[in-house]
């Protein structure tokens, strides 16, 4: 075998090796991102998509927890029944009012707190950590403490009211008082979290905007209104959407606030949310089909909210 042929062979080998390498490289570039995100989608398919679709399928059946394998086709019966069910509409109404009562003050207060924290101050990081501590508390612990605070006979709030000469309030029995109490748990837990998100967005606003506003003689309040808030729009939209989703799924706080028989959300279901109604139907009355229909109704409501949010987001971007 001549030296040239050997060199040729070595060259070919090298070329093949390179080709193989570059092919692998191309595959790597092309496919590995999919491989990296695949675990999420696999888990989502198993624990998100499948239950979602199966719940939809179950919602078209008459099926009881005592015999979950025995499903009888019921068409849209469960949904029709929901439309005709006062308790469902009551839960929907409560979810809405509780959502407004907890989300609106929560976000406004978060905005104000973020603004305060944005100022130069001593111990800024202490206050930032302090803001986040309620978020780190479990729903159960927070709710149980609030139940004690809002107690009718031996609660601290009524004790304070009494000291101020005001008659005690039966927080749990009244519609508005109970909803205020439940909202206060949500507000307490989530205000700091949102404040930190706002604070992060505020720190990204260019300083020169404020400087030129100050040069134009804008007061602190006007700077807040005309510089800070408009710059925060995308963040505001984000927090509104996230809080709304959270409000639609409100469950743990009213359940624990209700104490014994918490799934009923009070004697007159005055603070029974859709989540609690679903829980009662599925896990106390054992009507899995109807509970599934409630779950899907909640899903559809969230889709509508998402669509509205998308529209608003597009308008905001168009305004810029």
């Amino acid at each position, binding site marked *: 075998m001549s030296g040239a042929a050997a060199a040729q062979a070595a060259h070919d080998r090298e070329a093949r090796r390179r080709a193989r390498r570059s092919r692998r490289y191309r595959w790597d570039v092309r496919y590995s991102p999919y491989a990296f995100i695949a675990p999420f989608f696999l888990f989502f398919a198993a624990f998100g998509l499948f239950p979602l679709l199966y719940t939809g399928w179950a919602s078209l059946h008459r099926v009881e*927890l005592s*015999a*979950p394998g025995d499903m009888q086709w019921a068409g849209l019966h469960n949904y029709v029944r929901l439309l005709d069910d006062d308790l469902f509409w009551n839960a929907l109404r409560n979810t809405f009012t509780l959502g407004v009562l907890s989300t609106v003050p929560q976000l406004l207060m978060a905005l104000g707190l973020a603004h305060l924290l944005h100022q130069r101050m001593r111990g800024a990081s202490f206050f930032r950590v302090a803001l986040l501590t309620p978020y780190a508390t479990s729903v159960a612990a927070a709710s149980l403490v609030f139940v004690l605070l809002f107690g009718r006979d031996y609660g601290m709030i009524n004790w304070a009211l009494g000291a101020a000469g005001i008659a005690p309030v039966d927080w749990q*029995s009244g519609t508005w008082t109970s909803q205020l109490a439940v909202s206060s748990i949500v507000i307490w837990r989530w205000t700091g979290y949102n404040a930190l998100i706002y604070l992060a967005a505020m720190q990204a606003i260019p300083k020169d905007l404020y400087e030129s506003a100050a040069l134009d003689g804008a007061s602190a309040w006007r700077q807040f209104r005309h510089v800070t808030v408009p710059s925060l729009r995308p963040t505001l939209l984000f927090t509104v959407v996230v809080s709304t989703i959270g409000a639609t799924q409100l469950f743990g706080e009213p359940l624990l606030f209700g104490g014994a028989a918490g799934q009923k959300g009070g004697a007159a279901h005055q603070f029974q949310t859709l989540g609690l109604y679903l829980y009662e*139907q599925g*896990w*106390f009355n054992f009507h899995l089909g109807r509970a599934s229909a409630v*779950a899907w109704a909640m899903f559809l409501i969230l889709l509508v909210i998402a669509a509205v949010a998308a529209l608003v987001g597009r308008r905001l971007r168009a305004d810029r």
Partner: protein
Amino acid sequence: MHGGSRTSRTVVILTAVTALGAALLAGCADDSGDDAGGKTVISVGTFGVFGYQQAGLYKEYEKLHPDVTIKESVIERNDIYYPQLLTHLAAGSGLSDIQAIEVGNINEVATTQADKFEDLSGAPGVDKKRWLDWKWAQATAPDGRTVGLGTDIGPTALCYRKDLFRKAGLPTRRDEVGKLWAGDWQKYVDTGVAYRKKAPKGTVFMDSASGLFNAVVNGYADRFYDAEGKLIYQHSPAVKTAWRLATGAAEGGLTARLKQFEKPWDQAFANGRFATVACAPWMLGYIKEKAGAAGKDKWDVAPAPRPGNWGGSFIAVPRAARHKAQAIDLAVWLTRPEQQAKVFAGQASIPSTPAAYRLPAVKDARNPYFGDAPTGTIFSAAAQGIPTLRIGPKDQQIAQAFTDVGVLQVEQQGKSPEAGWRAAVEDIQSAVDG
């Protein structure tokens, strides 16, 4: 069933995912162990405290059967335990060799799940005459198969505060107190009216209208269902009487307007807010704990106007259990009168086997916290007066709609009994209609 195991399994997966809490608990509840060191491990799944461990019964059984080890797994609350049991039954896995079943669920189990449990009526060593008739009947399916053996029962008495009774000018000795209302719950409410006239400041006669509702309604044979399993709650004398008395007491201001087993109820025990509460034997320990040292020598126990039953349980062996024969043997042994009497000694839960009432552990039992009241005789006398309670599949949901919606609306929200009744019926219809 047509669905087959795949459908049922997927439903189980779905339900487990949806009920996050239940799923988390499921994680720690199953895996009824493999055979450790050549011994057979029998697993026992209960809700709340059954007292077998505390009374040393597992140790005793293990001594009698050296090849057996017993492992108990406990879920605190039945409303978590029972749905989980249903999903495990549907899946045919994750079950303990012995599963406890609460009286409120036993009918549903007997009528819808009987094919998933061993029939214990002919099990070796079982004699149905050992149990109170009605206890045995409750766990027996329409086709005659018995799915569970009775453990304890909950005959009710009335716990009362001697000191408050004295201040209100009422008798304080338990036999005289019992005579105040013997035979008729109306007389109990009348006593409340008398109490209110001279009530010590800051106290009322009873804890809650719902407690009264339950105590009254549970003294009747037919409450929510008739013999054919038809719903009769709208017209049954049991419900009507209980409703009238409970809402009357609420409107008359005789109650502390509390919900039982909530924190404020506990606090009211500690603060001596009410003078009476209908109590099953298992509640005496609870009262002692909540009323604490401040309530010592103040509480006592008198017979209720009419005996009723509040609570109680069964133990059953699932078909899918790993060690069926051994589990059945253990279940039979645990429910024998001698063992039930031992549980009573530790736990004060009244046996469902009358032979145990004659054993000294029950007969001579006195409760020092309750003025040395002869609780064994008071409660076993009540037990023998309980009628054959007819129970139905949705008893728990129906009772809860009355107590936690209907009665509570009248008691806490000041609504009219008519409005409360309508609200309760709406809830019941939502619960019974699939």
